[in-house]
């Protein structure tokens, strides 16, 4: 079995290549909470609170704090207890979830359309009044530890985490999982929240609701949130390197990434990206698989034939359009666009893809390959290839 998937998929990426040319203003509440909504004709709706305070914004001595903050979502706040939020959500048939990325922490509620006002209110309280109570820390820390354990034992997650760490070291290189030695107190959490739970770092994103309605709900629910200032990340610097992780895994994993600073194409984060290939195969075949992957990148850097380009363009168009179909990825796109302050519709994204030429692709591939590669191998380390064997 040999499977090569582009790391693009795994990395949870947002195409920001369309920044130039299509900028439309994003609507905001009076204190600066960004609002984005896509009104579809489905009976259900989803609301997401997206806070621009992912793992890259963690203070150096408090690595892992964002993971704790994520798990403190929907806990006791000044207006409702965690128990009440859970039970009331059950009563209206909603589903709550929270998610941590390198750029953002997001909390999502999926519900019937008529219950959107309730969840917007809950999100407003979450931002303004979460208590970060001492007695909740124990259960939060247990959840954090369980999630870290799951991540460690899932090679796909461990590889991508190691890849980021090697590529960017700190900032974007910070793990989204708290280490078992991370020492986080409720005081640290309150301080982190007071700095990051501010209107200018928050976006409220919804599907199934009109933007005007969402804005009027947010205006009242978020009125107590301090304005604060927008998130400012230290510019990501790409380092690259080689990481080998010994792991009790029956198959070998190789991920090869190349970093890029802002350029015409920028897949990934607000100011940097990682592009690469990820191969997973039996220990016997993994070297061959990784070589094939690198060779195909190298070939693309030389030239891309008209046929190949046509096929790739069609695939890219399909993927772009499909991203606007699913609720999760629509929310992701809207949130990234709201926080970066520009809006792009599906049609505009597709139109922009038509401007891409075959030559641009090979130029970009060549640019990627000129940077120092980041390689991560995970599995039975002694049997896995060193980067020199691949390039």
């Amino acid at each position: 079995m040999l499977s090569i998937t582009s790391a693009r998929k795994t990395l949870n990426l947002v195409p920001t290549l369309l920044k130039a040319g299509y900028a439309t203003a994003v609507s905001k509440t009076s204190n600066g909470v960004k609002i984005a909504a896509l009104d579809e004709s489905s009976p259900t709706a989803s609301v997401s609170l997206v806070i621009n305070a992912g793992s890259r914004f963690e203070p150096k001595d408090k690595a892992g704090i964002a993971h704790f903050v994520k798990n403190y979502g929907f806990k006791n706040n000044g207006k409702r207890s965690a128990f009440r939020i859970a039970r009331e959500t059950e009563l209206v048939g909603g589903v709550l979830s929270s998610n941590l990325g390198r750029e953002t922490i997001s909390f999502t509620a999926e519900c019937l359309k008529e219950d959107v006002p309730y969840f917007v209110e809950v999100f407003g309280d979450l931002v303004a009044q979460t208590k970060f109570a001492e007695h909740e820390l124990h259960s939060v820390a247990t959840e954090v530890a369980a999630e870290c354990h799951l991540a460690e034992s899932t090679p796909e997650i461990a590889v991508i985490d190691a890849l980021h760490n090697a590529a960017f070291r700190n900032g974007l290189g910070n793990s989204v999982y708290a280490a078992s030695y991370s020492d986080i107190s409720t005081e640290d959490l309150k301080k982190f929240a007071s700095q990051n739970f501010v209107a200018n770092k928050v976006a409220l994103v919804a599907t199934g609701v009109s933007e005007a309605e969402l804005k009027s709900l947010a205006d009242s629910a978020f009125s107590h949130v301090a304005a604060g200032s927008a998130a400012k990340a230290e510019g990501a610097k790409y380092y690259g390197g080689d990481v080998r992780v010994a792991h009790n895994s029956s198959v070998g994993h190789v991920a090869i990434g190349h970093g890029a600073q802002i350029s015409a194409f920028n897949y990934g984060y607000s100011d940097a990206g990682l592009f690469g290939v990820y191969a997973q195969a039996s220990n016997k075949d993994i070297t061959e698989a990784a070589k094939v992957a690198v060779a195909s990148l190298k070939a693309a850097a030389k030239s891309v034939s008209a046929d190949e380009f046509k096929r790739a363009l069609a695939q890219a168009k399909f993927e772009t359009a499909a991203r606007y179909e699913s609720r999760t990825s629509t929310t992701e796109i809207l949130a990234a666009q709201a926080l970066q302050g520009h809006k792009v519709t599906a049609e505009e994204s597709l139109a922009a893809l038509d401007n891409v030429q075959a030559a641009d692709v090979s130029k970009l591939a060549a640019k990627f390959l000129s940077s120092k590669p980041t390689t991560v191998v995970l599995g039975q380390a002694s049997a896995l290839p060193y980067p020199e064997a691949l390039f």
Partner: protein
Amino acid sequence: MSGITLVNQVKASKFLSGILTPVASAFVNASGYRKLGMRYDDILREETDIIREAINRLPENESYERFYRMKVACQYSLSHTIATKETALKPEDDIRYLTPIIDEVAAEFAEREDFNNIKSYSK
């Protein structure tokens, strides 16, 4: 905490609190727990779900000091002595460190009880 209480009315009225505060102080002194070095919140009945949960939520240093005061009180009791006037707990040190937590936990328990007996109806 249950029962009918007029504590807020008494506290609000200068006249009533003026009369009752000395009486209350005399009562507390007569009850004698301060002469064993203890605070009021140390002698609350521990064997209820609410108070047990509240004690679990005490910060580490508070809970350590609570145990320490209890050990000291046991020692007084064993040796059939009480604290001298200087070493007895001063009224201003008789801080209600547990009561706010008890109130919070009691509210949470009541809320849970309410939700468990909820009657849902369609709009």
